[in-house]
């Protein structure tokens, strides 16, 4: 069962974080924010607080309150989730002169997120689209996984069973995601760690796509060599039930 607080955290720190990736990898998106230098503070009552800055063509999502030009307030996690679904509007508290950015470029970025995360028709046959879709989905899934491990009731049980260390998720010759586990608390960063305690690898992007979209189960992937694992496996064993919860929050 989805918890609206956990869903809000996933939406803010996993889905909206996708803007970071978009600005780095999609030239149209980068063009939309050319010359933009501002940051948006998201404040969700009884929910997550995060700050998205867009500066020098780069995006960065940070947790907590930071210097901002625009402040958007949400009365509840559910309110924020409805905004993400396009069914509600935020309450602006600051930055009224910059609302044009929200209704213009920011909305277009949100549409781009949707475009890449929810493939339609034959879009996946385009290799460039396929790459962006899969990499964004992977980032969203594992950043959401950390939120679920820290805030979902069942996720917390699994998270607390994960031994400390760095769990490296890796697409061979592709992106890497580090999941840091410290006393049951999980945090995610992009990139590769030089000395992880456990590693879960996908042979290529196609395999990652299959797994992330429920077309290949991990047991089969690990058995036939399309995926591999090594290191302190209790980290992976206890991550798997959390990974199973990701579709509940990112459906």
């Amino acid at each position, binding site marked *: 069962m989805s918890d609206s607080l956990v869903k809000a955290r996933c939406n803010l720190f996993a889905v909206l974080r996708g803007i970071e990736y978009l600005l780095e990898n999609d030239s149209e998106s980068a063009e939309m924010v050319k010359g933009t230098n501002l940051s948006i503070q998201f404040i969700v009552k009884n929910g997550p607080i995060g700050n998205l800055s867009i500066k020098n063509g780069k995006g960065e999502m940070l947790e907590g309150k930071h210097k901002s030009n625009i402040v958007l307030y949400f009365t509840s996690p559910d309110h924020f989730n409805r905004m993400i679904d396009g069914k509600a509007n935020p309450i602006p508290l600051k930055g009224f002169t910059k609302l044009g950015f929200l209704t213009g470029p920011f909305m277009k970025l949100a549409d781009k997120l949707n475009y890449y995360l929810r493939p339609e028709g034959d879009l996946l046959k385009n290799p460039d689209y396929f790459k962006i879709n899969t990499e964004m989905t992977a980032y969203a899934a594992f950043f959401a996984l950390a939120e679920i491990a820290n805030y979902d009731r069942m996720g917390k049980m699994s998270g607390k069973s994960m031994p400390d260390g760095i769990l490296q998720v890796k697409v061979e010759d592709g992106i890497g995601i580090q999941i840091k586990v410290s006393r049951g608390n999980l945090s995610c960063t992009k990139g590769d760690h030089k000395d992880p305690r456990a590693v879960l690898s996908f042979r290529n992007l196609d395999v990652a796509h299959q797994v992330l979209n429920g077309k290949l*189960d991990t047991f089969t992937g690990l*058995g036939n060599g399309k995926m591999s694992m*090594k290191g302190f496996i209790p980290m992976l064993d206890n991550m798997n039930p959390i990974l199973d919860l990701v579709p509940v929050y990112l459906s």
Partner: protein
Amino acid sequence: MKNEIYTQEKSRELFERALKVLPTGIPGHLGPVQSQFIPTSAYPLYADRVKDSYFWDLDGNKYIDYMCAYGPNVLGYNNEIVDKAARSQYEKGNCMALPGKVQVELAELLVDTIEIADWALFMKNGGDATSFARMIAKAATGRDKAIMVEGGYHGVAPWTQPLTHAGITQADVDNNLKVPWNDVEAVERLIEKYPGQIASFMATPYDHRVFTDNQLPADGYWQKIRKICDDNGIILIIDDVRCGFRLDIEGSAKYFGFKPDLACYCKALANGYNMSAVVGVQSLKESASKIFYTGSYWSSAAPMAAAIACIKELKRIDGPKLMIKQGTKLTKGLIKAASASGLDLRISGVPSMFYMRLTNDDSLMMQQEFCAECAKRGVFFASHHNHFINCSLTDEDIEKTISVASEAFAIVANNNPHRLGK
């Protein structure tokens, strides 16, 4: 001399077929994921035949097997004495409308063999036995809670699994209370918190969990647990499924100097024939009688005949002593071989069921590399689990194992200079 490197094309081909019709390809603990075949490509996936301490894979490669089918191989695969007894009973009758004479004979033998046994009941798997023992405790006490040790393995019934596992619901695990191994005070705290509500304390004779150095009971641990159980009307259950007959023929509780109320057996009971048993003290016989707990094949006679032959043979050759002796010889050799490559191999647990781990990194990656290099050269270890010695393991097998291990340790050392401070 370098050892031959194996390949396993036929296993891979069969596994591809299996993936189409069997969930996960190889279900359960023998699957490549659960078995920690890391990397999968280093390991055989299917066995073609077995004998004594060896199995041959589909490609004809021969392995010295230190997993022993995860325990059942105790005398040696296809032991002629056991197989003859089973065959003879098969010819007379196996699954019949009435139990065979061997049911009584096996119960008598267990009562005569296991120190605490006043009676015995039979089933098929270790999990049948642990579930039944827990039911007996509930029937005898009228209580519903059970203390278990964190990380302890008692089978795959829903009550044995964490709530986070697929298919497990809150109701399945509601009555479980967990304590750390060797922590008497934690047990006392639970008893104080749940007065008159705890039916049983269940644990393995020592802590032989996976991925972790195994731990023997601290001095006086079991004696204190026994007293706490006595003082509070709690049934003390020993899950001797894995250790049974590898530490002491009279039961692993005897080895550690205490007397449980119930003990569960399986693995080494019948040298690979499907048998498990619960034995108990006289005062619980009535409770055991009241419980309706059975299965279509639980009275099958041939596995009981095999169990009788197996236990008699283990007694004749003093199997536990022999396995501990060979385990000691092997593990000393492995430590020396590791040391020669600058590696630190830690052995824990009882030598007949030793667990081993290279301590040079805390991720087990070096251990996984070591086991994979051994598998490629015909020695079958597990990187995550305790191993099993069987009575047919020869000095030549140990010598060959150490030769392979030496080669594997050297490769691991060469691949991991950063972990060795080089």
